Structure formats: C-alpha cells, structure tokens
C-alpha cells in the first residue's frame, strides 16, 4: 500500500475518534488499525485509497475530532471512505470479533441436516387450519376478458 507512516498515524488518530475505547471495547488503534487493518481494507477495496488520502491530507485547525467533523462537512465521500476503512479494519480483527461474538459468515453442513420445522408444528397447523387464502382462477365465464388489455 502507498500510505506512509505519517498518513498511517493520521489515520489511526481519526479512526480512534470514530472507534474509541469505550463500552468495554478497545480503540481502533489498539488493534493495529493503521497497519494490518488498513492493509486488509485497501487490498479488498483499492477504490477507497484516493478519498481516504484526501481526508488524511486535510488541514484543519483543531484536534482529530475537528478534522473528522470537517471531513464530514466538506468531503462526504472522503468521510464515508474513512468511516468504512476504520470500521471494516476494526470488525475484521480477530480479537474484536471475539469480543462482539460474531464468528463471521461460516459454512456448517450440520445446520441443515434435519429440518427444524414440519407440518406438525403447532403454529403451522394453525395456519393450515385457517384454510386457503388465495383467490382461485375465476370460472370460464369470467374469463371472457382473458387476454384483453386495460384501457
């Protein structure tokens, strides 16, 4: 990736505004968001590189929070790239996934081995007992209009 150490440090600071240490969760910078995290994101989404670089280059008076607010106000596309890079880098980290209890999208053939529902289910039996809910095909007489166009 083309981001240098200065840009990566800036990214870590801005990512920590969006993903701070709070609610028992680590900050973005605590899970190497600007190293392996950013590399992972940009490998998957090279289209984020240019708008992210733009935000990192913004000159704003004030702290990282001010820079984030400035990006949101003045460069919404760049801001969304920053937000996606920060959160995607964060939520693809193994430690974070463990903390939030998300295993990722996984395949397990045993999940479908046996259906967990059949027609004997009490709720389904009540649906069936209420009877048909469709309108049948009208009789041939009514079907005289078949094929006709709406006016």
């Amino acid at each position, binding site marked *: 990736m083309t981001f240098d150490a200065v840009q990566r440090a800036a990214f870590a600071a801005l990512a920590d*505004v*969006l*993903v*701070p240490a*709070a*609610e*028992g*969760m680590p900050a973005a910078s605590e899970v190497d968001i600007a190293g392996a995290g950013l590399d*992972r*994101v940009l*490998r*998957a*989404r090279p289209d984020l590189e240019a708008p992210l670089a733009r935000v990192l280059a913004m000159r704003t008076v004030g702290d990282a929070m001010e820079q*984030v*607010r400035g990006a*949101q106000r003045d460069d919404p596309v760049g801001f969304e790239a920053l*937000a*996606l890079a920060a*959160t*995607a880098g964060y*939520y*693809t980290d193994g430690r974070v996934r463990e903390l*939030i*209890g*998300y295993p*990722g*999208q*996984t*395949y*397990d*053939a045993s*999940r*479908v081995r046996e*259906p*967990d*529902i*059949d*027609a004997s289910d009490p*709720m*389904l039996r*009540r*649906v*069936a007992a*209420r*009877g*048909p*809910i*469709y*309108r*049948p*095909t*009208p009789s041939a007489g*009514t*079907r005289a*209009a*078949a*094929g*006709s*166009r*709406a006016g």
Partner: protein
Amino acid sequence: MVGSNGRGGPDEVADVVIVGAGASGSVAALRLARAGFAVTCLEQGDYVDPSQFPGDKLEFELLAPKTWHPNPNVRGLADDYPCETSESDVNPLMWSGVGGSTVLWAAHWVRMLPSDFRVRSLDGVADDWPFTYEELLPFYQEVEKEFAVSGLGGDPAYPDGAEMPLPPLPIGKVGRKGAEGLDKLGWHWWPGPNAIASRAFGNLHACGLRGTCLTGCPDKAKASTDLTHWPAALDAGARLVTGARVREITVNGDGLATGVIYVDRTGREHRQAAQVVIVCANGVGTPRLLLLSKSSRFADGLANSSGLVGKRLMMHPYAAVVGFYDEPLESWLGPAGQIIHSLQFYETDESRGFVRGAKWQIMPTGGPLGLRSGYGGAPLEDRFGPALHRNLREQLGRGFEWGLIAEDLPEESNYVTLDTTLSDTDGVPAPKIVYRNSDNTRAMLDFHLARAHEAHAVSGAHKTVETKLMRDCGWHLMGTCLMGNDPATSVVDQWGRAHDVPNLYIYDGSVFPTSAGANPTATIAAVALRCVKHLIETRQNQEVPA
C-alpha cells in the same frame, strides 16, 4: 426448421441463437440442445468460479457493496452496461455472466398465485395473462426439480400446497421469532421456498447457511444456472460464447430475423447467423436490443409496431422494516434466501385503499458492517464514538428484516429507452430508465409498512427501523415486451413469438403482462420452459429465412 445438432459454429447458421445465458436462456438452451437443435448462446459476461465469491472471505462485508454489488453502475465492470437512472425512483439490478442474475439472486422461489394471471378479470386493472396458473403449474413443477427448490408443502396460499422437491431449509431462531408474531395475529406465514439445496442435488452441494447468497454462493449450494443448467446443456451439444455483447438483431427483406451481430471483448465484431433468434437479456437488456435493431422496415425498433417495446416497466418497489430484539437470534445465519414468508396481505382488499398486494419475507441482517449501513445520514454522535459500540451490542445478531415486495402495476409512463449520451464500453447506447411509483404503489407500501411494524411489535421487538423504498431494489425487471393475444396491443404472443417477426422470440421477464407481488424467477423459468417446449413441438411449422 427441424433441429440438427452439431451445426451452429461461428461460421455456420445455427438453428437457434439465444441472447443471454441467465434463467430463461439457460432453460431454453438445455431443452433445445436435448431436442437436437444446433443452439448457440451469446453471453456478454463470463463464468465466475465460485471460489471468487466473497462470502467465505474475511473481507466479505467490504467486498459485497462494491465488486459484487448488484447495481452495474456501482460495479462498473467491462462486462456490464451502464444504465441512466436519473429519472427513476429505483435502480435496475442485474449480473452479466453465465447464469445471469441467478449468480447474485437471493433464490426466493415464489410461484405466482392464481389471481396473478387474472388481474383484469378479478380487479379490473391492468391485464390478464394469456394462460392460467393451472396451465403453467406443470412447468413450475418441472423447473422446480432443476432449480433444486427446498420448501415445505401444504402452504394454504396455493391451491395445490406447492410441494417442493427438497425438504425445507431451517427457519432458525429468526424465523421462529417472526412466526410467533404472525401466529398471535392470526396471519399467514410459511417456511420460505428457496432455490437453495437443503440436500446435495445434481451439481449443487447442501447449503450450510453461510448467509451470503446475494453475492454468489461459494459453497455451490444456491441454484444458479451456470451450475444447474449449463453443464447439461453443453453436454447435449449447446455452444456457449462468453464475452459476446449483442448489439443488433439482423433481418432480411421478408422481415425475418437472420441472426445477430455481436462484439467480443477485443472489440471485434462478429455475425452469428441463425434460423431463430431468442432474446433472454432481461427486462432492460431485451428492449434495449430491440430498440437498437432499427432498420428501414422496423424504423421504431424491432417488433415494435405496437409501440410497446420498452414500455410498462415494472421493478417491484421494495420496502423493509427491521426489528431488534432483546435475545440473541444469530441473525447473520442464512439462508438469505427467505427464511419464512407471508402472503397474508397479498390479495386485493379494496377497503385498504389500493388494489393488489405484497409478499413479505424474513431475511437475515448480516454482520457488523451491514448493520452500520442503517445509520447512513445520522449525526456523527449517533453513528460513531461510544454509540458505535452500544448500537452494535444491542443489534448485532438480534434483528431481522420483514421485506415487502410490492406489486407495481404496468404503466406506459414507466419505460426503458435508449440514452442519447451514455454508452457501454463498446460505444453501444446505454438504456435509460424512466420509472416512478404510482399512488396505488405508495398507498400499498404505506399499508404494508404499518403492518410490518405491527408484526415486529407483537413478536417482541423493542425497536424498529423502516426503509420506505430501497433505491437499489430493481432486481425484478418485467413488462417491457408485453405478452398478449392482440398484435396491436402486445409485442409477443403467449409462446413468446414476436407478433411482427415470426422467427423472433422473447422468453425473459420482459413478457410479463403484470408483475404479481412475488419474486419472478420461478415464473420466468416456467414461462421459458412452456415457450421452448412449444417451439420444439411446432418446429416443422416454424418460418425461417431462406
């Protein structure tokens, strides 16, 4: 035309050339090849190896909304054509490649209901279809075996209960939670039928509920016709040319189609001569191609003496209500896919202030990044900072969506035309979409959204979030080459044959007289099967160019 397998190479006259290798083109190619026809199919995209799909990658949620986005304008791949959508409420969605949009579809397998074929007779609006549910039923049943449909029979929404060839997929915690609410309300629900294999079936493996159906199935469990139809079609002698963008259907002085002109990926132009042309390029691509195929004889576009080519576009406006619950529901699990569905408010009840209705289905809500997208446009403090962690803890794995597929009625003010400035990478004019929701549609969506909030509340949701109209929802492209009996008021007859060009056929969703409130692929495949069987049965009478 009698069918003579073995011909139809690049320099030969094919018995049949098919434009598009998606659902309808695949069904047609397989039947024609097995019947001994020399069939060539031209597909603008390529094969996708399932190992390329992002669902089994760590970066899945990053890749899904760009590289694998269903909107070609977002993907921007060379195989795609762009669509001009500045005058549309909804973006058309599609995939260009072998399998067509079945590569990225959600695989909801929904037969239309009997009333859907008799809208004019029953509700006094739009049109009746040229055939009934009962006439189409055997074709539904035949293609359901090919598409490995999993489901539970006995559904009282259908006259015959809609038995499916494979047992249903699990409904899981999410489905049971949604069903509990509808059960208390006394509303219809049923395990959702899906073209996803619950058991190994043909070329498909058993589903493992990865839940990434909408970006292609890396597990080869979802029915896409690159897996379900093309291997058999190729074995039977069909010829499939990928990277072939058809830009014109050619005609002779007798007004018969003589083949097509296509551009390969190097930009080189080719001609494929054929005795019969079948267009299966979806409800946007098909009218685009007909409108591109102007000639002195067909100055307004091919098969367009009715003026209806491109008109009456229907795309199924989609709204949704996501509910969040206190208990963990593992709501990132598949299928995605419909877990359960409801047809409680599908039929017309004019006391509601509109005609026709909508199908509901529960779909999972995915992982942490998918949840974030629900906060677009919210203030910074509500999206990020400590709120990010709080929101995630409250919502990840604890929510599900009631999605609402609303029937939009055909209106000539909604249409596909050729854009005057935008073009694809080969310089071929792009389609322009003009599409607005009607008052009937808006009233329908409002009613259904209110009921979906109610359903979540009764199921115990502590919070609901509503999407009034999803802009990227135009999966279902229908109506733009109307099927009917009268050549003055329709484009093709009940067998898909163009009234104006007796050896030109259209088999895709373009021919739908109405859209129903249900996902169309089951009906697209069944109608294509009905049409192609008729073509094969009547081959001796088929008029072809000299």
